[in-house]
C-alpha cells in the first residue's frame, strides 16, 4: 500500500493505463507542460511525450470533439475539462453527440473515452467554478458517471473508466485533491457500477457521493457516539451504472434512506434514488425519505457563506436525529 493524495491518484491512474495501452492519449488546457492547473497530471508529458499528452487552446468544443472523433476511430482519449462548470460550453458535444451517436447509428460506433474534470464546491471559487454537475451528466442517456471520494477509488475507478468501452464522465471533487489515502500497490483497477458500504449500520442508510462521503462518515460517528443511532453510509461512487442492488439491500435492512448531495436541490441524483426507493421499497420503509442538499441556489464565494449552504456533517446529524427520533 502506498499513500497517495487524491490528486496524485489521478496522475497515477492515467500513467498506469498509458503504459499498458498506446492508444490511450490525453489532452486538455495546461495539462501537459504545466501538469494541469490542479497539478493532477504532472509528469505525464515527460513520460509519454508530446504525441500522447497534449496542450490545447481554450476551445472546449474542440477538445471534446477531438476526443470523440479520436475515440470512434481507434484511440482511447482522456480529455480534461478544467472545471466541470465549463462543460456548459461544450455540452452539445457531450450530451447530443458522444452520448447519442452509438444508439442513433444502431450500434456502429463506440466511444471509449473519459472526460475528467474538477467538480464541486468548498474551495471558495464562487458560483461559476464550484458546481457539482453529476446530475447534468446522469440525466443524459449514454454517459457513465463516476465520482470518487478517496484516493484508492480515484485510481481504481479512473483506470476502469479508461478501459471502459463507453464514454465516462469522471468527476474529481476539487476540495479533496489534497486528501491522502492508501492505494493498493501494483496495477489497480476497480469496476464501474459498484457502490461501497463505507460504514456498516442498522438504523438508517445514508447515501453520499464524493466530498459528501467524509461528511456523512463524520456525521455517522457523531450519531453513533452521541445519539446511539447506527448509520450505514453508502459511498455511491458510480451514478451510472447505478448499483441499486447495494443501495436497495441496505435500505431493506435499515428501512430508512437519507441522501446527501452537494448539488442544488432540484433534480439531483438523490431525487432519482429517492424515487427508486419510494417505488421499489415502499413497503419496507419506516419513515420518510430525506434528501439533504445544497439549497436551490448558486454557490456564494465567501467562506462563511459557502459553508453555510453546503451540507455539513452537523446538518446531516441534525436531519438524521430528527428523522429517527
Amino acid at each position, binding site marked *: 500500500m502506498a499513500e497517495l493524495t487524491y490528486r496524485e491518484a489521478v496522475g497515477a491512474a492515467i500513467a498506469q493505463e498509458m503504459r499498458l495501452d498506446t492508444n490511450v492519449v490525453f489532452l486538455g488546457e495546461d495539462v501537459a507542460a504545466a501538469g494541469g492547473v490542479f497539478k493532477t497530471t504532472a509528469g505525464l508529458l515527460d513520460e509519454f511525450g508530446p504525441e500522447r499528452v497534449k496542450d490545447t487552446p481554450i*476551445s472546449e468544443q474542440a477538445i471534446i470533439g477531438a476526443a470523440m472523433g479520436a475515440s*470512434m476511430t481507434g484511440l482511447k482519449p482522456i480529455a480534461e475539462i478544467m472545471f466541470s462548470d465549463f462543460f456548459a460550453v461544450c455540452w452539445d458535444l457531450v450530451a447530443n453527440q458522444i452520448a447519442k451517436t452509438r444508439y442513433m447509428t*444502431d450500434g456502429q*460506433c463506440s466511444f471509449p473515452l473519459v472526460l475528467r474534470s474538477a467538480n464541486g464546491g468548498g474551495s471558495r471559487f464562487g458560483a461559476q467554478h464550484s458546481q457539482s454537475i453529476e446530475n447534468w451528466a446522469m440525466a443524459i442517456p449514454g454517459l457513465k458517471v463516476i465520482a470518487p471520494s478517496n484516493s484508492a477509488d480515484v485510481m481504481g475507478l479512473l483506470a476502469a473508466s479508461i478501459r471502459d468501452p463507453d464514454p465516462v464522465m469522471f468527476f474529481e471533487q476539487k476540495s479533496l485533491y489534497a486528501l491522502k489515502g492508501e492505494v493498493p500497490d501494483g496495477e489497480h483497477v476497480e469496476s464501474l457500477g459498484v457502490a461501497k458500504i463505507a460504514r456498516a449500520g442498522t438504523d438508517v442508510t445514508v447515501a453520499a457521493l464524493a466530498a459528501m462521503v467524509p461528511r456523512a462518515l463524520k456525521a455517522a460517528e457523531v450519531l453513533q457516539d452521541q445519539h446511539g443511532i447506527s448509520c450505514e453510509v453508502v459511498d455511491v461512487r458510480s451514478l451510472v*451504472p447505478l448499483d441499486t442492488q447495494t443501495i436497495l439491500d441496505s435500505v431493506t435492512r435499515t428501512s430508512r434512506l437519507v441522501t446527501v448531495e452537494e448539488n442544488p436541490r432540484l433534480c439531483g441524483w438523490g431525487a432519482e434514488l429517492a424515487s427508486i426507493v419510494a417505488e421499489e421499497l415502499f413497503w419496507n420503509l419506516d419513515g420518510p425519505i430525506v434528501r439533504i442538499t445544497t439549497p436551490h441556489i448558486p454557490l456564494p464565494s465567501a467562506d462563511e457563506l459557502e459553508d453555510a449552504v453546503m451540507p455539513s456533517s452537523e446538518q446531516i446529524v441534525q436531519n438524521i436525529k430528527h428523522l429517527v427520533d
Partner: protein
Amino acid sequence: MSKKKKDVNKSVKDEPPGILKGGAEIAIETRLRLYRTMYECRVLEQRAYDLFMQNLVKGTSHLALGQEAVASGFGTAMRPDDYTFCTYRGHNHTYVRGVSMVSILGELMGRECGLLRGKGGSMHLTSVEHGAMGSYAIIGAHLPVAAGAAWSAQYRGTKQVSVCFFGDGTTNIGAFHEALNFAVIWKLPVIFVCENNLYMEYTAIQDVTAVEHPAADRAEAYGLEPIVIDGNDADVVYEAASTAYAKARDGGGPSLIEAKTYRHGGHSRADPGKYRPDDELQAWLDKDPIPMYRERLVGLGIEESQLKEIESETDEMVELATEEARNSPSPSTDIAFIDVWADGGASWRN
C-alpha cells in the same frame, strides 16, 4: 472593406458558377464515374422526395438536389479508408462512400433494411464500414469531431484523411472557429468543405454574415489559404479535392474549401423555398451540375448511348432499391431498447 475584398479575390479561385473549366487532365473513367455518381445521387434524392410526397418518409429530410457535384467530386477523389463527416443534408455524402440505395431509402422510411434500422433516420446516416462516420444534425458539432478523427489518423500514421462537409450558415457558429484553429495548430489531415448554397434555412447567408465569403474570408484567421470553387462543376471539385487530399496526406495540414452551389428545393421537407427570388432560382437551375456535366462529356466525345446506359442502369437501380425498401418490414420495436452501451445493452442499473 473594399481593400479586404480585393485581397481575398486575388487569391481565390472564384469562378462564376456555370463556367466549366476544361479539366483535360482528368481521366475519362474518372469523369464517367463523376457523372454516374452525380446522376445516382440525383435520382436517389428525387426518389426520396417522391416517397415523402407519398408520406412514406416521416419526420424531416433535407435534400441536396443541385449540390451533387460536391459530394461526387470529393467522394470520387477519396481513398476508401478516408473518413467522411457530414450533416443532416448527408444522403449524397453517405451514398458516395458505397452505401447502398436500399439502406438509405430504407432508413428514410424507417424500415428494417435501413442503414440504422430506423434508429437514426434521414438526419443521421452513418456507415462506419464505408468510412461514412456520421451525419450530424446540430450545427457545427461535427467539425471538431472530424478534426478528432484526423488526429487519430495522424497519431496512428495511417495517412487517412478526414473530410467534413457543412453549409454556409455553419460558419457563424462557435464550433467552426474552434475546429479550424485546432486543426491548424495540430496540422491535422482534415479538409473542411463549406457548401455555400447561399442560405441557412430560410435566411440568406449574406444577411447574417460579416463577410462576403462565409468560409473563405475566414481562412486567413487560421493561417489558411482562402479557396472558393465552383461547387457545381464536378471537375473543379474533383481537382480541388485531390489537391487538398494530397496536401493532408503529405502532412501539410488542413484545408478549408468554399464550394459555391445551390439547393434546387427548400431547406427541408416542410419548406417550399419561396424566400428565394425567382430569377436567382432560375439562374441556378440553368447551372444544374448534371446536365452541364453531361454536355461536357458529350463535347469530349463520349457517346450519347454510353451516358444513356448509365442513366438507365441507375434508374433501374433506384426502382429496385425502392421496391426492396418498401417491402422491408418495420423494425422490431425491441431494437429501440438496446445499443446505448458497447455491450449492446441499455441498462443503467444492476
